[in-house]
């Protein structure tokens, strides 16, 4: 099968959905003429024009509320927030407005907006340009959250998100933009709410998000050499969370490591761990470990590595369990 990058897959998803449905369009800072600040929207402006690939002023909160308003009116806007970190400015709009309109209208309104953003570290870009922010939005009913890992998934999930009638926070990881993977030419979607078993195994379950999936694959190789068989699960979406797939793996292995790049305290690892304990307690043979960033702001430059989790942390956590 052809191999394309995460960035290309993302781009294709938007292009295909825009071709298919004239109500779909893209807006955000520098998404148009420039083709995105990391080149990930290149070609869309040329194909769809300034009315459907809209360069906006710098106004995250206003724009996210605008997207809600557009969606309410029947449009399916994809709003790009340039860095995940800036979602803090749009927190109310993304978390507290869009997701509540439907319920507060007694089910009359719907808000099919997608809030895309590039999150994560790996560029040494310091505390306000490097964060993974999914956990900020986990306690807000009405929202859905996707955290795609592979080119295949980013394409399929984004298409699903665009077609979904609810607001979806769609967090891409910027360190993955260049990663290549198999993506079919044919149309497909990846439904929201279905986890992926990245690799089967029997001794320990690793539930990993985004670039920690890649670290986990490396860790698994190393562990396998020592005879430890690891199963890796990528939830792909956090709301809804595919508890079936997670629970059945936990029931098999009885041992769990959860790995994400956001800080450990308050990260989604807590929710996933609690959920497993609540539902699979009898199967657990060891404490659930979390591998995550330290609870400090992300340092600038090279020292970033002292803060963020990597393969070695995963290997260590797994070894502590077996």
């Amino acid at each position, binding site marked *: 099968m052809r191999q394309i990058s995460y960035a290309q897959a993302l781009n294709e998803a938007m292009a295909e959905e825009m071709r298919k449905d004239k109500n779909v*369009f893209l807006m955000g800072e520098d998404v148009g003429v420039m083709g995105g600040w990391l080149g990930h929207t290149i070609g869309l402006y040329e194909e769809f024009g300034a*009315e459907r690939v809209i360069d*906006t*002023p710098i*106004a995250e*909160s*206003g*724009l*996210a*509320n*605008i*997207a*809600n*308003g*557009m*969606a*309410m*009116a*029947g*449009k399916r*806007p994809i709003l790009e927030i340039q860095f995940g970190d800036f979602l803090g400015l749009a927190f*109310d*709009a993304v978390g*507290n*407005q869009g997701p509540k*309109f*439907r*319920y*507060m*209208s*007694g*089910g*009359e*309104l*719907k*808000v*099919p907006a997608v809030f895309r953003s590039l999150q994560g570290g790996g560029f040494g870009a310091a505390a306000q340009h490097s964060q993974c922010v999914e956990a900020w939005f986990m306690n807000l*009913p*009405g929202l*859905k959250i996707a955290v795609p890992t592979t080119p295949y998934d980013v394409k399929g999930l984004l298409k699903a998100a665009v077609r*979904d*009638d*609810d607001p979806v926070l769609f967090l891409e990881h910027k360190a993955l933009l260049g990663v290549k993977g198999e993506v079919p030419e044919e149309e497909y979607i990846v*439904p*929201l*709410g279905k986890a992926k078993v990245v690799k089967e195994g029997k001794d320990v379950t690793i539930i990993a998000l985004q670039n920690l999936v890649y670290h986990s694959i490396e860790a698994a190789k190393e562990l396998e050499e020592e005879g430890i068989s690891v199963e890796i699960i990528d939830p792909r979406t956090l*709301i*809804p*969370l595919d*508890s079936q797939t997670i629970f059945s793996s936990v029931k098999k292995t009885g041992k769990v490591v959860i790995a994400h790049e956001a800080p450990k305290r308050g990260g989604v690892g807590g929710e996933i761990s609690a*959920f497993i304990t609540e539902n699979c307690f009898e199967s657990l043979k060891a404490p659930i470990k979390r591998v995550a960033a330290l609870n400090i702001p992300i340092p600038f430059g090279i020292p970033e590595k002292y803060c963020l989790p990597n393969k070695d942390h995963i290997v260590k956590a797994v070894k502590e369990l077996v």
Partner: protein
Amino acid sequence: MKYSKEQLVKMYEQLQLSRIFEEKLIELVAEGSLPGFYHLAIGQEAVQIGAVSAMDDDDYLVPTHRSHPAVVNRLELDKFFCELLGRYDGYNQGKGWEHVSSVERKVLPASGDLGVGAPLAVGYAWALKMDKKDSVVVCLCGDGASSEGNVHEAMNIAALFKLPIVFLIENNKWAISTPFSKQTAVDKLSKRAAGYGMKGVTIDGNDVLTVRATMDEAIAKARKGEPSVVEAVTYRWKGHFEGDPATYRNADDQKEVEEAMKNCPIKKFKAMLLQENVMTPEDMEAVDKNILQKIEDAIVEARKSPLPTEKQTVDYDAVYATNLGGDLV
């Protein structure tokens, strides 16, 4: 006179519906029938009636928490009462309350957060423009709420993209306990508009015909892609919500209140209608009686509707339009 007899009578009806409706709310609050907080616009009716009377049926309203005059004139009374009483047959199954909305009636929801209405309205207006619809959005906003960043971002973008919207700032001189003088150093909020390259005007919000004429023009311009800001100056007679004793108002403030009450927009309009022989006192009485009757009937009707049950409340189809199952853990 610029407006036909029919139009003038309509405005009278709209003003009186607003006033009588809110007076009824006061009664209902007093007798303990209404849960929650009710923000009355008594004394400010000319602003919203000037606006809604200028709007086409296809134009959209984005209200605030103090928008009964506009909203009650766009909605069906009984379904609106149901909503305020938290009943399942309300516009929003009793889940909307003061945030009531109705797509059919082109009333969009009032967010619980001040200032959010402005970008929401801009988004809606933008969608209308994309669809080449002829509709305009009229976005209500308080003087206090105009300090919010969302309003700035919204106005700038509306002007930049030439969207069909009118920002109607209802300056009632108060934001809860905070007088206008403590909210901003500018004398006229309409001056903000120039900072975005839009037109802005400040008008007497207690004269319904002035508001109407200004909104006629602003809406017509908005329809052609020229958004603008209209600041209508009025006064909040009562406390922030019904039941607020407003003890933060000092003696000078009280004098202002009295002045404002003398300057009642409805009294003024009535006097004009009588003087110009548009309506007789008997006409008016008939209108008023009719309104009161309708309101009372609507309340009786609304009270028959049940509160939402547990099942109707915990309804994931009302949370998610694409319900992917479970409680979306």
